[in-house]
């Protein structure tokens, strides 16, 4: 199988390679995402394996599943999904991320269909997926309900959506905005707008209104002693993740 034709202007390749290196540098600008990634992947892989009855110990367990990664960035989730055998489309509204992700996937020997587009545009075009990854996006959109409705339309009946975001309370403000943006400078200031944060109950409500059936939710909890993240059944106070299905 051939890699998708790269549409990157050759004169820009060096710049994009540098940006790809930055995206994938575990100690660099995207360090918080790299730290969170194993925990996110644990949740995503277990939910997909459960929903589609796949054995994660087998070779290419997600073979035959068409998967959309919304807000794919440098491909931190798209690449693992492709490595597990899924047929992956990575979409990002920021045009600059697409060649960066393409270059890294080629370096990694992976074939991923990266596109500069939005969930709404893909839904309009009638694209359908078994799995939609909607990670850390909903807190950035202007109209969450119409956005989530588009992500619902992108799912085949019986499909699975994983959606993660940030809770809205004083603790999440302290952790996400004051902690991550101001103190640690992990993220550029202004990355988050606190008023757009959504509580788990509100998200479940929005997902239901968008036509999905929420089935599970868990917290991503940061442990400052071990400097790592873990999944929690009870603590959804800052970062959390949900799974919902589209009725068959």
């Amino acid at each position, binding site marked *: 199988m051939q890699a998708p034709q790269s549409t990157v202007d050759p004169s820009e390749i060096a710049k994009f390679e540098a940006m790809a290196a930055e995206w994938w540098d575990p100690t660099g600008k995207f360090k918080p995402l790299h730290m969170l990634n194993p925990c996110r992947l644990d949740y995503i892989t277990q939910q997909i394996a459960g929903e589609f009855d796949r054995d994660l110990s087998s070779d*290419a367990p997600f073979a035959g599943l068409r998967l959309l990664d919304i807000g794919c960035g440098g491909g931190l989730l798209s690449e693992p999904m492709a*490595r597990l055998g899924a047929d992956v489309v990575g979409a990002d509204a920021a045009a600059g991320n697409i060649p960066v992700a393409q270059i890294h996937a080629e370096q990694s020997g992976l074939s991923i269909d990266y596109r500069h587009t939005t969930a709404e545009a893909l839904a309009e075009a009638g694209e359908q997926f078994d799995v939609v990854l909607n990670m850390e996006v909903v807190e950035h959109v202007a109209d969450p309900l119409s956005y989530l409705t588009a992500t619902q339309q992108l799912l085949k009946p019986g499909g699975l959506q994983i959606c993660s975001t940030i809770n809205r309370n004083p603790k999440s403000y302290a952790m996400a905005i004051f902690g991550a943006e101001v103190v640690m400078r992990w993220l550029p200031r202004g990355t988050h707008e606190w008023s757009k944060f959504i509580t788990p109950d509100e998200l479940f409500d929005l997902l239901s209104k968008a036509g999905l059936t929420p089935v599970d939710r868990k917290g991503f909890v940061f442990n400052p002693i071990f400097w790592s993240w873990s999944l929690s059944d009870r603590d959804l106070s800052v970062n959390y993740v949900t799974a919902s299905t589209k009725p068959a």
Partner: protein
Amino acid sequence: MDNPKDRGILRGMKNTSDILIVGGGLNGPALALALAQTGHTVTLIDALPRDARAREDFDGRSYALALASQKLIDQIGVWGAVAGQAQPMLEIKVTDGRAGQGPSPFFMHFDHAEIEEGPMGYMIEDRYLRRALRDAMEAEPAITLVDEQTVIAQDADATGVTVTLARGDSLRGRLLVGADGRRSGTAERAGIKRTGWDYGQTALVCAIEHDRPHNGIAHQFFMPPGPLAILPLPGNRSSIVWSERSDRAAAIQSLDEESYLSILRPRFGDFMGDIRLAGDRFTYPLNLTLANAFVAERLALVGDAAHGVHPIAGQGLNAGLRDVGALAEVLTEARRRGEDIASSLVLDRYQQWRRFDTASLAAATDAFNRLFSNDNPLLRLGRDIGMGVVGAIPGLRQTFIREAAGLTGDLPRLLQGRPI
């Protein structure tokens, strides 16, 4: 192996296997088996010919497998083949003694009956363990064996690592593992420097037959020239590990059998009756060597390649098997998440897990040896009292027993007897 299911995966130069392991000793094969069981393909490159790993006769070498190590050997499917030849260690007696004198009145006695898990470990002869690991690898379709070949070059890039063999051809994988011992060429080629020092001591190792039974008791005598360990083998046989200043050790090793025994006998005492040699004699210079990093680009080190410790407490192989359990667990979890198993993020998890444990083991064994290899009467009194105190407090004693059985610390699942 072209898998039609790997639709999202492009292959450039085809991988020989997911993982290439250099070193056919004990840790390399144990890791190969653990990884093959969790869905990885493995190629193991051994510098020695096949026959050297499968000899039938007893050469006198044996290992003290801690209970946790035995659990790993069981989990990788090899214990059944060696269980009949293993001697359980039921008790450990640690005594401070001087040649020609009886042991001091203070000694530590550890009995497996004080912990729930069973014996503290097993003595197993090298020939049986090596053979069983070899047989298990040959029966495993996911493992490819390359015998009698050395690696002359290795080159890591964005998607994998290419290894060039002395015979001229190349192998390619996603990750390279150096299990090639304390002078690891794999580590050296990756530019990993080592820290270490020589103790000026050499371990003399042999197996003996004795008239009386050992009752499954392991003895450790601390003597001024260095420690003497008597470890029970099946039948009326024991493995002896005996440390001396290197110049004296060389002189002793060059003696004929009878003279060698005449030096050993007075240290040994007569509690097991008369003794005879039951295999070859070996010497191992005692030095400590720690790799400054356990991982590099697409590379991980296990066993002595990462950390060669003073074999005073028989912890070399046991520490190596902890590496094996930790690396297999980290790589398998990464694989199930779809991560690049050789990315620095993944390899750093292994390094963080193992470096703390290893540094503390190296420091403890070193301090232990310095303390017990000293004939200063004050130090001697101090350690006698110390041993008496440890021996008298049941809780502390249980901690020591569990430590000796390898059951403490952040144990990889295979060493807890659980699958990954």
